[in-house]
């Protein structure tokens, strides 16, 4: 049977120690059974490893940083579209999602489909608003507060107690054991990611993550829970195992149906020793470990692409339990001329 050829733009090609999801997403797309793909990579920097993975990515274009704004991004995407005829774009970074969501209608007019959460879903689940989110949907979340000045930490320490988590609005999280550390992390994070910085009550337990896909009508199309087996110093899973935790899956379905979540997501959960699950964070995109979901039978990038194109997608009902992913790093040898092309022309 002839499968349709779909051209898909993918971001998040920084397959480094704290990897972007792009390479894993592309591996899933390459294994899709319902279509063939031509992959166009979108990179921010010329050292993103995915750019040079020619067996996975057909062509890469540099795109402007989110700080440049949606108009600059649109103009770049119009140029890329004139050459590549993209059918779908899958953005994979939290920080770029806002611009892509804003551009959804304009990109659709160019023939580019996406399957992203709405602006209100995106804002509501933001870690700055997580406490209100938990109250609204009846999901247990740790006490949290967004602050704009390090002096606020002193006043809040009776509510939060040490250790406490200090989190950046986009990335980074540190455990502070005393006031001095809390102030240092506040300054470090605010310098890098801006304000506000989020204080969150520290929850001791075991980390579990769920990756999934909501159809926007309250239905869970995919959901695979994973226990982190090996964690890097940045808190990222370097290995994990698929599990069958009914409670975790019930919380996931509750999240999708209550919010009518549209698009991919990752729930970061903490399970305490008395079996209480706290929702620590909601990432409004596919996570870097998504290839585990593909490997256990739920090809989330493929399903998301089909939903973006308006095709009917049957929800996944099973997956293999007890399968591990183990990440590794790999040295590629790259000719200088390739580095030159992406650096000078912004294309490779």
């Amino acid at each position, binding site marked *: 049977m002839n499968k349709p050829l779909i051209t898909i733009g993918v971001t998040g090609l920084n397959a480094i120690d704290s990897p972007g999801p792009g390479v894993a997403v592309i591996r899933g797309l390459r294994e899709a059974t319902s279509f063939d793909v031509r992959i166009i990579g979108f990179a921010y920097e010329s050292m993103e490893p995915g750019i040079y993975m020619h067996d996975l990515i057909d062509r890469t274009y540099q795109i402007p940083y989110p700080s440049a704004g949606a108009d600059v991004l649109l103009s770049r995407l119009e140029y890329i579209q004139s050459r590549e005829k993209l059918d779908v774009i899958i953005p994979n970074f939290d920080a770029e999602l806002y611009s892509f969501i804003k551009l959804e209608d304009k990109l659709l007019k160019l023939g580019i489909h996406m399957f992203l959460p709405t602006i209100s879903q995106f804002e509501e689940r933001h870690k700055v608003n997580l406490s209100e989110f938990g109250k609204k949907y009846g999901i247990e979340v740790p006490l949290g507060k967004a602050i704009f000045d390090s002096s606020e930490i002193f006043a809040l320490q009776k509510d939060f107690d040490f250790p406490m988590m200090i989190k950046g609005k986009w990335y980074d999280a540190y455990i502070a054991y005393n006031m001095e550390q809390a102030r240092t992390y506040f300054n470090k994070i605010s310098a890098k990611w801006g304000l506000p910085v989020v204080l969150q009550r520290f929850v001791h337990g*075991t980390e*579990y993550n769920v990756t999934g896909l909501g159809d926007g009508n309250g239905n869970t199309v995919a959901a695979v829970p*994973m*226990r982190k*087996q090996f964690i890097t110093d940045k808190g990222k899973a370097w290995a*994990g*195992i*698929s*599990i*069958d*935790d*009914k409670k975790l899956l019930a919380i996931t379905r509750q999240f999708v149906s209550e919010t009518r979540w549209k698009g991919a997501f990752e729930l970061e959960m903490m*399970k305490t020793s008395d079996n209480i699950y706290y929702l620590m964070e909601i990432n409004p995109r596919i996570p870097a470990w998504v290839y585990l979901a593909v490997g256990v039978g739920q090809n989330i990038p493929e399903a998301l692409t089909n939903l973006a194109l308006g095709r009917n997608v049957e929800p996944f009902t099973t997956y293999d*339990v*007890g399968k591990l992913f183990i990440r590794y790093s790999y040295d590629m040898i790259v000719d200088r001329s390739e580095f030159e092309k992406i650096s000078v022309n912004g294309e490779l």
Partner: protein
Amino acid sequence: MKINENLAISESGFLFNPTTGESFTVNPIGAEIIELLKEGKTDGQITEMLLKTYQIDSQTLQKDLHDFNDILKQHQLLEPNE
């Protein structure tokens, strides 16, 4: 208490709890006890069977079995009867 029904145990004594993702290894006697628990045997029945197979006095066996059960409980591998 009964053993977690979903618990997977291999001949090598490797245990995997699919609910939590935790894994453990037990020695051959530990594996034998877990298999007996999975078959629904009570502590009394297990003691009786092990006494027939191994050269051990009843008091030591009961104490060891009690300790082993405590470890299983601690790791949430035993759950209350319905």
